[in-house]
């Protein structure tokens, strides 16, 4: 950002499109070649980059082959390697993670390039390995086939998306989090059981009888829920140091539910139970937990 603010620095750049001014020896792509990315300044003034995303090294190579109208059976390895490395370098300079697979392929390309430069093996020196590009070409051809298959799947997907089956519900902003089903008393007790199994019965010596106070716990839960929107049952119980505290906390929770201060929800059967603030005009109709009764 700082660089762009200093027009003094602006002298002729080394754009790949202007090979005459490019001191690097690299062979430029044909003039028809599309760039792998675009640079632009967005209205706010920062420099933005659009970079083509590739699914992997084979995808990148196929793109370069297509772009530069290369015969896949006779790949100019030096050119393609240079182009390939250019992209990797571009990713790196943008601080993007370059996946290991890209680097492995870079090494493969360079190995092939080196082999191509070697004079033909003299008789008996090495078994005739054939064209060092052969294996890569086969991989590219196979990958290309599945890329094409993926393309046909994509168009089938698009076609299918135009067809709606019965019962697609309208609205209710289902893009948001999934609606949570109200948890039942049974779910709560079930969750309590699981917690009780984990919390060992232990004697906490210094503890006075009144340290676990239902009302304290009630205000603690209510405060947490008010401040954070929700707390998970597991987290709540995890903070308990003894079984007595678990039970007191549980009773406090039941009280709060009964008072309508909080409600308990569960995203899926046997999932964690979430304690959330009860909405003001919350529908009394679906009161999630019946009176705690003799709990």
């Amino acid at each position, binding site marked *: *950002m*700082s*660089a*762009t603010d*200093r*027009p003094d*620095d*602006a*002298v*002729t*750049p*080394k*754009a*790949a*499109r202007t090979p005459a001014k490019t001191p690097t020896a690299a062979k430029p792509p044909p003039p028809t070649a599309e*760039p792998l990315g*675009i*640079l*632009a*300044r*967005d209205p706010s003034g920062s*420099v*933005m*980059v*659009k970079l083509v*995303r590739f*699914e*992997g090294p*084979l*995808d990148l190579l196929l793109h370069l082959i*297509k772009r530069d109208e290369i015969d896949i059976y006779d790949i100019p390895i030096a050119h393609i390697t240079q182009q390939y490395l250019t992209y990797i*370098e571009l990713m*790196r*300079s*943008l*601080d993007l993670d370059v*996946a290991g*697979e890209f680097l492995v392929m870079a090494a493969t390309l360079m190995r092939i390039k080196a082999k191509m430069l070697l004079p033909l093996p003299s008789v008996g020196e090495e078994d005739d390995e054939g064209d060092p590009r052969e294996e890569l070409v086969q991989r590219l051809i*196979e*990958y290309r*086939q*599945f890329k094409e*298959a*993926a*393309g*046909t*799947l*994509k*168009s089938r997907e698009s*076609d*299918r*998306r135009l*067809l*709606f*089956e*019965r*019962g697609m*519900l*309208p609205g209710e902003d289902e*893009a948001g989090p999934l609606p949570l089903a109200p948890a039942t008393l049974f779910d709560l007790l079930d969750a309590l059981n699981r917690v009780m199994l984990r919390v060992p019965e232990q004697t906490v010596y210094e503890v006075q009888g009144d340290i676990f106070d239902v009302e304290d716990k009630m205000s603690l839960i209510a405060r947490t829920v008010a401040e954070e929107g929700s707390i998970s049952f597991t987290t709540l119980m995890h903070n308990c140091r003894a079984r007595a505290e678990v039970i007191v906390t549980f009773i406090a929770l039941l009280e709060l539910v009964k008072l309508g201060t909080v409600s308990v929800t569960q995203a899926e059967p046997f999932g964690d139970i979430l304690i959330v603030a009860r909405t003001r005009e919350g529908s009394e109709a679906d009161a999630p937990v019946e009176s705690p009764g003799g709990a």
Partner: protein
Amino acid sequence: MPPSNLQAALEALLFSSDQPLPLTLLAESLDAPPDRVAEALREYEAACTGRGAGVQLREIAGGYLLVTAPEHAEWVGRLLRGKKRMRLSRAALETMAIIAYKQPVTKSEVEAIRGVDSSAVLGTLLERNLVTIRGRSKVVGRPLLYGTTQEFLGYFGLRDLSELPRPEELRALVAAREPEQLDMMEMEAPASALARGTLAELEVVAQVGSDLPFSSDLQHEVEPVGEGDMDDAVAEELGQTGDRPAD
């Protein structure tokens, strides 16, 4: 005893289901011989076309499914606004294609073809139930084998796997379709890259102004920049030089 008005009863059945209904299940439910039901299905399909219905009968995933006609997608889409329908990523489509053609196939076979780790994408497809575990390979390590599901057929609107184009047909199909759409990632250039000037050294086209193709579309579109302007443009964007002074 089959219904007195077989076609109307059939319509009621098709109508009540959001899943493809196999012929056998339809015949069983209607207490009618499968061939009569098959005939009624053909008649019903023709009737839908004939009256210009808003729905049409499709054979999907080994069954019959009533769906809205594609020309009404716009209106239904408006009604269902807010309901996101999933679209598979390119990685997912690639993986899906490999599994569909090579099943049963192991994860490492998929990865060998794609050239990249495919665990995440496979996990997603499994979770979506487009792919399922088919057992284990007998090779060393006995890796899990994957194959496609009924949901796969339903998701892509395929009657059965044989509806997938044969490998040799793929070329022509792909060539006939619109040109390749490139997936672009958009980001802000880090200051370090600008300072190093590495971006300009690569094949990058600079553009100036706010009327940039930096919209949400993912088209690989490049506006021509005059040769003369380009140098200036790149220079301005990158603010670097071949002989930039040390900071």
